[in-house]
């Protein structure tokens, strides 16, 4: 154990998958920092990736003036900072997304309010 302690004591990780009703997925929208940070959502593993795009993101990011302008055909995704090509028809789990994975999307041509990346 890397911890310097007087005696051993049981270490209980607080955020393992079993402690949540559904796996947590973190989502960020690049160049749109009006939303101050990426968000955290518990999403059932069987949620289709397409539903994330069609039903969930609007509720999260719809207040941004760029959101309605998104051309979803040009959107690209990153998972843990690496290029990621999700299959819209498959579930989050089938797309390889598990508990506490972080994904980001880029919307080409949209650079936030007044081009400020916010």
């Amino acid at each position: 154990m890397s911890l310097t302690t007087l005696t051993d004591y049981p270490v209980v990780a607080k955020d393992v998958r079993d402690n949540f009703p559904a796996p947590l997925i973190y989502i960020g929208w690049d160049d749109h920092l009006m939303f101050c940070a990426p968000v955290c959502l518990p999403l059932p593993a069987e949620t289709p990736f397409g539903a994330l795009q069609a039903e969930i993101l609007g509720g999260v990011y719809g207040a941004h003036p760029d959101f309605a302008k998104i051309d979803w055909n040009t959107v690209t995704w990153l998972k843990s900072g690496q290029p990621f090509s999700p299959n819209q028809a498959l579930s989050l789990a089938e797309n390889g997304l598990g508990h506490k994975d972080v994904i980001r999307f880029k919307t080409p041509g949209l650079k936030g309010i007044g081009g400020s990346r916010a």
Partner: protein
Amino acid sequence: MDAQVKKKKLGLKPRYQAMTRGLDWQTSYQDMDKVFPYDKYEGIKIHDWDKWEDPFRLTMDAYWKYQGEKEKKLYAVIDAFAQNSGQLGISDARYVNALKLFIQGVSPLEYCAHRGFAHAGRHFTGVGARVASQMQSIDELRHYQTQAHTISNYNKYFNGMHKSNHWFDRVWYLSVPKSFFEDAMTGGPFEFLIAVSFSFEYVLTNLLFVPFMSGAAHNGDMSTVTFGFSAQSDESRHMTLGIECIKFILEQDPANVAIVQRWIDKWFWRGYRLLSIVAMMQDYMLPKRVMSWKEAWEMYAESNGGALFKDLARYGIRPPKGWEDACEGKDHISHQAWNTFYNYNAAAPFHTWTPNAEEMEWLTEKYPDTFAKYYKPRFEYYGEQHKQGKRFYNTTLPMLCQTCQIPMVFHEPGDPGSICYRETDHQDVKYHFCSDHCKEIFTNEPEKYVQAWLPVHQIYQGNCFPEGTDPTVEGFDPLAAVLDYYEIEVGKDNFDFADSEDRKNFREWKGGVEEEVSP
């Protein structure tokens, strides 16, 4: 009758020796290591505790007399402030939100410091360190009390202060200061001193106290200025303890250097992240501003800190690893922090607002390279939206850094338009961080930080609803249940200043006169 022989009074130094250094003894019924179990386990080697210097040579009787006099003066000012309705003399009611932040997030740290120093004082075998820690422990308790007493006058007239202790243990952003101090208190006594006395009190405390106290003076809050002055003489003693303790530890054994360096790297960065709230207070929450966060950072950190680490180089200590990133952040963190609270003001018991035109100008001037380019457009947009009755509130919970517990709002160094994402795996679970430095703090001691009580995750685990809540009933509103659990009075403690009861009341008390407030 013989003339009575007058006892010779001891000089200051021998008197100090008699009243402190004679207080330790070697235990005989029990093994010393059993009585002082925390003295060695961190790996710090002390060969001669008598080399510990006590620069102030303060004894408890002198302490009592001196502090008693100071506090008599402080309470006279507090009384006069209350009797003269001093709260009406402040610049405008937005200022009170700086005090809310102080009583919610800073004063409880004084109490934590009181506990931490009491623990350290109990567990050092060296008597000089023990006396210094005990005295500081009492200082910290006094500071908590005087702050609570000073601010209680405001609590009679303004929202956002009535449950500050309850909030400290529950509300999302207050887990940042809370976890900071609990991290320090759960280290050993030597790490605690490096964390609090050196890294926080010596290196960073001016950045906390000076902005709050000069902010109070500029904004007509004389009672807060007075507790600041009362605490200031203690602070200088605490800072001296910080510098003396690090030099003492480093001189005792060469093997101590590497351990101390790792603590400096960790605690400088943790302290710096904690100060994000001070940065935003300084740049956004003072109607009459003192200096920008950037200017304060340049004065108190860059020039003073630079000289300090030059001085410590002879012990083999280098500047903390996060130093350059912290300096790069001076152009950004206040804006990023304010935007965060603007986003989540529905769940925070103080008010936020968009800066008015004159304030935008000041920010543009103080941050010529960054404000107009990255931050002003979003605040202008917020203002316009608010005017149309669409005040922006972010309704989705944020992703947090596992170490500092701040939402992941900080930028990739060198790229202000991108969020900095870092992650690692530990025992098949992913952990995320806002920076290389928070990640390194985690990877050095993962077992400690996997236990972190992250507010967002706790909400999703169902642990932040009032007892007896049934989240399965139809129409269950989780955010309302969380605010209920926080004991935030919705519509009074939270939301935008423009729509607040504080603003309305203050305007009435002042006969309808008000400074220019946006929108």
